C-alpha cells in the first residue's frame, strides 16, 4: 500500500479510479466468457465491435447526465430531475425542429438551454430559498415531465433520421460516424472530452474548488467571505446544462422521445456517479470515477441483454452495487473521524 501511495501516477489518477478500471476490464472478460455459455445463440459473441458500439450508445448520453450530477452531489446536494429534464429538452427542441421547422443548429442550442434553465431553477430554489435539494428536484422532475408533454401536445417526437431529406439528420453523427465500412463511436470521444473539461473545472478552477469545499463544510466557506450561494447555484446550472447536452445524444441514439418518461435515467446517472467514488455527503468527487462508473453501467446493460436476460437484472445488480459502494464510503468516513 505504501508503495502504491508513493507512485506519482497512481496519486494523480486516484487509487479508487484504478480499482474501478480494473473492475471494468474484469467485467468485460466475465461477460466475454459468460455470454457464450448462457446464450447458445450463434450471434451471442460478446467480444465484437458491434457490442462495444451498442454499449457506447448508452454510455454517451448517460455519461453526460452522470458528469452533471457529479457537481451537484459534490456540494452535498442531489438532483433527481436530470432524466426528465433531458427528455423535456429533447421533446421541446424536437417539436420546434419537426413541427415549427426551426433550423437544426438552433434546436440543438435550445436543447441545451432548456437543461440550463432547469438547472438554474433548481439551483436558485435550493440555495436562495433554502429548499432541500431532494424535494426541489423531485418537484422540478414532475414539472419537466409535464412541461415536455404540454409542449408537444402529448405526442411522441421523432427527430429526423440520418437519411432525412431535410438534411437535418447529421446530428446523429455526433453519436456514431460512418467512415467507409467502419463505424466510429464519436459520442464516446466527445464524452471523454467533456469529462476532461469537467475534471478541469472541478479540480483546477475556483468554481470546482468552492463546490468541493461547500460540500465539505458550507459554513466554514461562507465564513471565509465566499459567496457560497452563487457557487452552489453554479453546480446546479452545470448539471442542468449537461442534461441538455445529454438530450442531444439521447436523440442521436434513439431519435424518438416519449413524453412523460425519463425518471429511470436519474437513478442510473446517480448510480454511475456514486459508483465512481463521489461521496453522497459531498466534498469528495471524481470525474474519472464517474466516467468509469458509467462505462461499467453500460457494460452491465449490454452484457445482460446479450445473455438474453431481462433488463430488470441490470437494475437488481446496479442496486446492489450502489448499496455496497455507499456503505464502503460511509465506513471509510466513519473510520477517519
Amino acid at each position, binding site marked *: 500500500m505504501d508503495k502504491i501511495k508513493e507512485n506519482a501516477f497512481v496519486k494523480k489518477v486516484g487509487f479508487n479510479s484504478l480499482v474501478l478500471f480494473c473492475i471494468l476490464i474484469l467485467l468485460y472478460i466475465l461477460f466475454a466468457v459468460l455470454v457464450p455459455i448462457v446464450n447458445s445463440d450463434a450471434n451471442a459473441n460478446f467480444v465484437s465491435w458491434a457490442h462495444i458500439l451498442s454499449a457506447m450508445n448508452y454510455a454517451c448520453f448517460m455519461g453526460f447526465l452522470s458528469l452533471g450530477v457529479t457537481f451537484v452531489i459534490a456540494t452535498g446536494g442531489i438532483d433527481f430531475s436530470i432524466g426528465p429534464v433531458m427528455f423535456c429538452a429533447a421533446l421541446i427542441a424536437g417539436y420546434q425542429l419537426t413541427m415549427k421547422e426551426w433550423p437544426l443548429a438552433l434546436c440543438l442550442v435550445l436543447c441545451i438551454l432548456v437543461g440550463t434553465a432547469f438547472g438554474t431553477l433548481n439551483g436558485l430554489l435550493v440555495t436562495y430559498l433554502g429548499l432541500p435539494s431532494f424535494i426541489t428536484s423531485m418537484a422540478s422532475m414532475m414539472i419537466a415531465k409535464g412541461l415536455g408533454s404540454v409542449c408537444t401536445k402529448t405526442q411522441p417526437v421523432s427527430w429526423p433520421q440520418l437519411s432525412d431529406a431535410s438534411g437535418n439528420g447529421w446530428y446523429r453523427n455526433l453519436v456514431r460516424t460512418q467512415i467507409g465500412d467502419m463505424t466510429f463511436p464519436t459520442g464516446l470521444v466527445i464524452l471523454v472530452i467533456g469529462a476532461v473539461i469537467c475534471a*478541469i473545472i472541478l479540480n*483546477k*478552477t*475556483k468554481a470546482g*474548488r*468552492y463546490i*468541493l*469545499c461547500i460540500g*465539505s*463544510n458550507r*459554513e*466554514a*466557506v*461562507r*465564513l*471565509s*467571505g*465566499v*459567496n457560497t450561494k452563487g457557487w452552489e447555484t453554479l453546480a446546479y446550472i452545470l448539471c442542468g446544462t449537461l442534461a441538455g447536452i445529454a438530450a442531444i445524444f439521447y436523440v442521436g441514439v434513439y431519435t424518438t422521445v416519449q413524453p412523460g418518461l425519463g425518471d429511470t435515467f436519474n437513478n442510473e446517472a446517480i448510480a454511475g456517479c456514486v459508483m465512481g467514488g463521489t461521496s453522497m455527503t459531498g*466534498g*469528495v468527487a471524481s470525474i474519472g470515477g464517474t466516467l468509469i462508473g458509467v462505462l461499467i453501467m453500460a457494460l452491465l446493460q449490454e452484457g445482460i441483454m446479450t445473455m438474453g436476460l431481462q433488463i430488470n437484472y441490470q437494475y437488481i445488480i446496479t442496486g446492489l452495487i450502489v448499496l455496497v459502494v455507499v456503505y464502503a464510503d460511509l465506513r471509510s468516513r466513519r473510520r*477517519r473521524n
Partner: protein
Amino acid sequence: MGDVILTMKGIDKSFPGVHALDHVDLEVRKGEVHALMGENGAGKSTLMKVLTGIYSKDSGTITFEGREVEFTNPREAQDAGIVIVHQELNMLGHLTVAQNIFIGREFMKGKFIDDRKMNEEARKLFDQLGIDIDPTETMSRLTVGKQQMCEIAKAISHDAKVIIFDEPSAALTEAEIEELFKIIRDLRERQLGIVYISHRMDEIKVITDRVTVMRDGGYVGTLITKDCTKEDIINMMVGRVIYEDPKTESQVAKDAPVVLKVEHLNAGRMVQDVSFELRKGEILGFSGLMGAGRTETMRALFGADPKQSGDIYVNGEKVDIKSPKDAVRHGIGYLSEDRKRFGIIVDKSVAENSTMATLDEYMKGLFIDKKKENDVAQKYVDILKTKTPGVDQLVVNLSGGNQQKVVIAKWLVRNCDILIFDEPTRGIDVGAKSEIYHLMNELVAEGKSIIMVSSEMTEILRMSDRIVIMCEGRKTGELGIEEATQERIMHAATLRN
C-alpha cells in the same frame, strides 16, 4: 432543612490531559435549595454528570438516602429518584404535553396508547403543583417557561427525591422566574432536595439556602446563603492564584486611532444594544459567563448572523455588513470558537484552507495557480511554525493547535487588519497555547487589532489591553487592564441589567 439525602464525597475525575474534578464534596439535605456555583469550566456540569451516571467517577463516594450508589446511566439515576431539568429542554415539540411527560412509559389500553388516561394523569400532576397548563396542548406552542414547568412535572412524576436545575432561569422572563420560584419553594416544602445551578447572584440570594462554590475543578467551600454577601461568593469563585503574569499596563496609546466602532448593535435576545470601540494595535478582551452573548455579538458584527440594528464603523467610515463577504472585504477576519464547524475544512489541504478567503489572488486566468498557492501556504506555515509534513497535508491530520494556526493563516493571507479571535485556545494544549499568545502579541505589534473572546479569566487578564464584560446579551462593564481584577470582572459578569 431536614436530614441529608445526598452526599458526594471526594469525587475525582480526570479526562486525558484535564483534571476535571479534584476531590469535590457536595451535600444536599431534604427540604433545601442548594446552589452550585462557579465560573465557566469550574466543573459544575461534570459533577452533575458524574452524579447521574453520564460519566463514571475515578474515586470518591456517592451516598443517596443512606446507601452508597453508583449509577451507570441517567435512567438508573432517574429510577432511583435523581432527575436533572436541563437548560436545553429535551422535549418533542410536536407531541402533546401529556405525551411528553409520559414518554417511554405510556399508559396502554391493550395494544393502543391510552391518551385519555395520560391527559388525566398529567392534569392531576399539574393540579398538585399548581401549574396551569392544558395537557392536550402541543408542546411547541408553549412558552419556554411553560415547557420548563412540564419538565419539572415530568421529574415529579418520576417520583424524584432530588431535582437538579441546570441554569433554569437563563431563558425565562421575570414573571416566569417568579412562577418557577413558587414551584421550587413548594418542592422544598415537600422535603425534596434541590440543586440549583445558576450564575445569577440575586437569584441565589432569593431562592437558595446554602451555596457550594467550585473553582477549576476543585471544591472551594459551602456557605449558608443568608449569612454571606454577593462579594463573598464572587471571591470564592475567582480567588485563584494566577500563575502567568497578567498584563499590568497597556502599551496602546490612549489616542490610538479607532479602527472599529460598534454602536447599539442588536441581534436577537443575546445581543442587546452592544457598543464598543477597538483601537489600532489593541487586544480587546471580551469576558463573560457562558451564554453572555459574546460569540453572538461577534457573529452579528461579522455578518454571519443577521442583526436587527446597529452601526459599524471601520476606520471611521460607516460600513454595511450584511454577510461575511462584506466583513472580509472591510478587512475583518473571524476565528470561530468552533474550529471544526466554522473554521477549517478538515478534509481539504493546508494550502486549500490557507487561500480560502483569498482565492481570487491565486488565479492564473481561469485556473488556480497551484504553485503560487502552495508558496503562500508554505510561507505562513514557516511564519506561524505550523507543524505539518507539507502544505498538501489534509488539515484533519493536524493537531488542534496547528489547525488553529491554519485558520489564522487564512486571515493573514487575506491581510485582515481586524481579527476576531473567539476562544482562540479552546482545546489546545499548553505549549501551543503560549505560541498562540505570542503570535497575537506579534500581530498587534505589527499594527493589527484583535478582539479576543475568552471564557478563561487568566487568558483575559494576561492578553487584554482593555476588557469588555457582557452578561445576558448586554454589555455590563468595560475595564482598562490597569484597573481590571478577577473580582471586578466577575462582578460585572453576573450583573443583570
